[in-house]
């Protein structure tokens, strides 16, 4: 079924919207959630939450690119759940590795800059990613948006895991420099 049709069903408050959405995008959302969350059960619950969130969001929202919209909703919900799990000390998995890697972009410690709005940071990161060469951008997004394992990224891009690690390493260094240039005291 076309995305427009699914969105139309959501707008009409037709229950089949969730059914069709789950049928078409169930695995896609599950793979994103599973990349962040440590267990299958957590990922499944997260995906179920995604359908509910989408049901509550459309209308009024009308996504232009439905797959990306679903990816963002799933990712945000998975991140919230990951934080709750980490508070219970049940964390781990690929997300833990990703957070550890991103620590390299920081110098540690709290500063007043922490108070800068999340929106400003998002804009800055978006500018940074948009300016990356295409290959680096794709690898950065696969790792830090979709939380895919390094080996899988290597497979997708036809590179060795070592090459991917080196590219990610360079990206993190560039991001650190970019954020510092933007006035973030890391």
């Amino acid at each position: 079924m076309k995305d427009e049709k699914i969105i139309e069903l959501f707008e009409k408050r037709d229950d089949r919207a969730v059914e069709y959405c789950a049928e078409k995008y169930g695995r896609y959302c599950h793979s994103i959630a599973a990349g962040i969350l440590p267990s299958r059960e957590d990922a499944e619950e997260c995906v179920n939450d995604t359908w509910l969130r989408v049901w509550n969001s459309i209308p009024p929202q009308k996504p232009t690119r439905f797959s990306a919209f679903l990816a963002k909703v799933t990712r945000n919900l998975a991140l919230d759940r990951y934080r709750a799990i980490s508070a219970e000390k049940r964390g781990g998995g690929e997300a833990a590795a990703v957070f550890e890697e991103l620590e390299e972009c920081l110098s540690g410690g709290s500063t007043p800059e922490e108070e800068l709005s999340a929106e400003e940071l998002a804009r800055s990161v978006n500018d940074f990613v948009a300016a990356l060469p295409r290959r680096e951008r794709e690898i950065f997004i696969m790792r830090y948006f979709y939380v895919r394992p390094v080996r899988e990224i290597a497979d997708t891009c036809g590179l060795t895991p070592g090459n991917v690690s080196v590219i990610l390493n360079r990206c993190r260094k560039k991001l650190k420099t970019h954020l510092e240039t933007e006035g973030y005291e890391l």
Partner: protein
Amino acid sequence: MKSEDIFEAVGKLDEELLKETEELMLKENKHINKKRIISIAVAAAACIALSVGAVGAVRSIRGNVPEAKSGGEVTVSNIDTEYSLPGTETNPDIYGYAGQDKRQEEGGITVETPSDTPSGGTLSETTGKEDSYGGESEDGGQSTGEIPPAVGDICRYIPPKVKGKGFTEAEIKDVITRENPTIAFSIGSDFEVSEKGYSHFNLDEHWMSTVDRDFLTLPVYSGGKIVGDITLFRVEGDDEVHSSFAYGGGGWDKLNSIIDDHKGAELVFGYYENRYEIIIAPDGTGYTLLGNEKTFARDAKDYETFKTPYNTFVF
């Protein structure tokens, strides 16, 4: 600021930026799945033909896999009404769940059947652009239910062919010296690179195994554990020694636990269809670094089959 703040900021990337990456991932997913479907079809048909010698049995298998058309193109139909990312989600073993996957046992061989395709049906019509997530393509769609069979599940294999000339001690030392700054930058100053390494056997889509001595992996230790590795390699027809250093990501803890469980044993290293690393212990048990354990080899015979002086290592 915490790393989670940056992670959250990445989650707000413009959809246009995500679009190209998503398309790349989905395109690759289709490519991989197509290769895997063909592999399973060819291997399964070959095994049945060899062991039973019955044309009818081959037809029976072919009825459950995409129909191969003239010119070698495969049209996968009706398989893909889903949208999924590459790799893990199609392998229930990796996440430890079966999902909607359906498998059919044919002559002792497990053949995957797409979840929404009637068993035994031939596959000849595509479902159209929107339903096959990547649009129309000569690749066809993707399978949502197939899983690569374990190494030992198909049939006996021919021992690996060994190729490549290997590396001299001087070449290995040169690479270690060259990679030292990168390793130190990445994991700190406390590390040690093994001057001994191992090649891998690679079981390709035709179920042929090769050990390429022009690929050599050297473990990198820190705190008594493997934290990364350096791979030395030569591009065919080129004498220059290239190298790449891998660290971070998942898998290292798993590798260390496998090694801890097999101290002093000769482990056989391999790659399965270029997709993931496999390690076979002397008792024939196969391991992957993705968190799933599986008996890749049904008995120790397969350990002997894949073992050569070049793809084994004792920790």
